[in-house]
């Protein structure tokens, strides 16, 4: 239906002006939105302070809901445990028997590793994590994948620090507030992590796809050597992420790499560890390897 031709609200000048001004302000809101967007595109750091302050304010509420999330997860886990107890027990016993022999092998290997590293003078200890804390909130309604840490400057968190859980890499700190910090998760499309295949070190990049998976892009093009089930760990090249942190497992192979599932699901991680950014040691000068042609 066509709108009425006469939109005048009445004879009251006051009412007319009020309506006019509110529409004027509405259009001004649209224009201001455009201006703010342009500012945030041109100068992404312009609103960091405001966002950090805002996430500091909601941090206590985030702590409460994080506890609630964990408790509800535990309830589900307990119920599921009752139902699956028998079959799970048998399976665990089989796995334990297998694991015992593996453990012996691993011990021998770690002794040998230590010996070889000692020979090379490479005994480098990983520094302890900066802080162990929780993820309190995330941007569940946006296509960007950010999460909020319950620790900020007050506990030594700094921009660029990698964040991981026991299971694998989660992301890195992007913005830091007084008591909270914003984390760019590895599933965000802007996150790019240098990785290698755990078994043989095939180098690749892991880039988020935005839907909870990661795209593994091989650096060297050619025949795709990846197979389903390959585990990828960070390679540490370029610094930032410590080498050897597991990140994803290949689920689907495509032409230039694979689509991989993230190992550390941020929603399952009770506690997360914030590490010091990794700075690669400059390699010792090596004699050039003669070409094998």
């Amino acid at each position, binding site marked *: *239906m066509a709108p009425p031709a006469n939109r005048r609200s009445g004879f009251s000048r006051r009412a007319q002006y009020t309506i006019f001004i509110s529409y004027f302000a509405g*259009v001004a*809101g649209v224009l201001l939105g455009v201006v703010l967007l342009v500012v*945030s595109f041109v100068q*992404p750091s312009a609103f960091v302070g405001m966002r950090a302050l805002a996430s500091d304010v909601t941090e206590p509420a985030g702590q409460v809901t994080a506890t609630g999330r964990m408790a509800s997860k535990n309830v589900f886990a307990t119920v599921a445990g009752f139902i699956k107890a028998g079959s799970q027990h048998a399976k665990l016993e089989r796995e334990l028997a297998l694991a015992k022999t593996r453990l012996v092998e691993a011990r021998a290997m770690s002794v040998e590793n230590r010996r070889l590293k000692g020979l090379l003078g490479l005994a480098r200890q990983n520094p302890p994590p900066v802080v162990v804390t929780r993820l309190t909130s995330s*941007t*569940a309604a946006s296509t960007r994948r950010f999460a909020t840490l319950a620790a900020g400057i007050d506990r030594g968190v700094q921009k660029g620090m990698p964040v991981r859980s026991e299971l694998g890499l989660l992301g890195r700190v992007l913005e830091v507030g007084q008591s909270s910090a914003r984390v760019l998760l590895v599933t965000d*499309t802007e996150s790019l992590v240098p990785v290698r295949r755990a078994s043989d070190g095939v180098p690749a990049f892991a880039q988020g*796809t935005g839907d909870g998976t990661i795209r593994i892009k091989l650096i060297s093009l050619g025949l795709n050597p990846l197979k389903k089930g390959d585990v990828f760990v960070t390679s540490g090249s370029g610094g930032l992420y410590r080498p050897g942190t597991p990140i994803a497992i290949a689920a689907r192979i495509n032409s230039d790499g694979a689509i991989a599932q993230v190992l550390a699901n941020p929603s399952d991680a009770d506690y997360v560890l914030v590490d010091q950014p990794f700075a690669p040691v400059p390699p010792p000068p090596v004699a050039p390897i003669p070409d094998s042609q």
Partner: protein
Amino acid sequence: MRLWPSFGRERAPRINRAPSSLIARGTPWLTVMLASLLPGLSLIASAPVLPPFGFLVFISWRQLRPGLLPVWAGLPLGMFDDLYSGQPFGSAVLLFSAAAIALDLIEARLPWRNFLTEWLVAIGLIIVYTGFALALANLDGAHTPLRVTWPQIVISILAYPLVGRFVALADRLRLTPFLEIR
């Protein structure tokens, strides 16, 4: 079905009572702001799975009570939403304000209301909002494909009537008379 205990209806006296003007005016603003916080606090998602509740509550209030939230309400509420949504700052300011104006233009052409038309109008707004939010986030350096947003659009569309119920409930509470008139 009664969604709220008989608070303020049978037990509490209603005669000689008036609603608090602060609550009557502040509830819409407060509910939109809480709804903006809700998706972030409810789970650590690895994909956009929750509806943009702030936006849904905002258009729900504008549909249920046109004029209660002014046309320019998108400016402050969108700014608040931007602080927590993860979108580039200004995205919700623009989209909330534009949605309020668009809703006014549509309502001038559709003066009657019923559940279906309101839902259809909201569906249109939700799809456009999600699309633009994706486009603005992608302009800011991301490159998320469009298919990632389909689940979110479907969930938002299905959640909208429930959000409308919640807003109606908040509207009833908003006008509960409990202040004694002296």
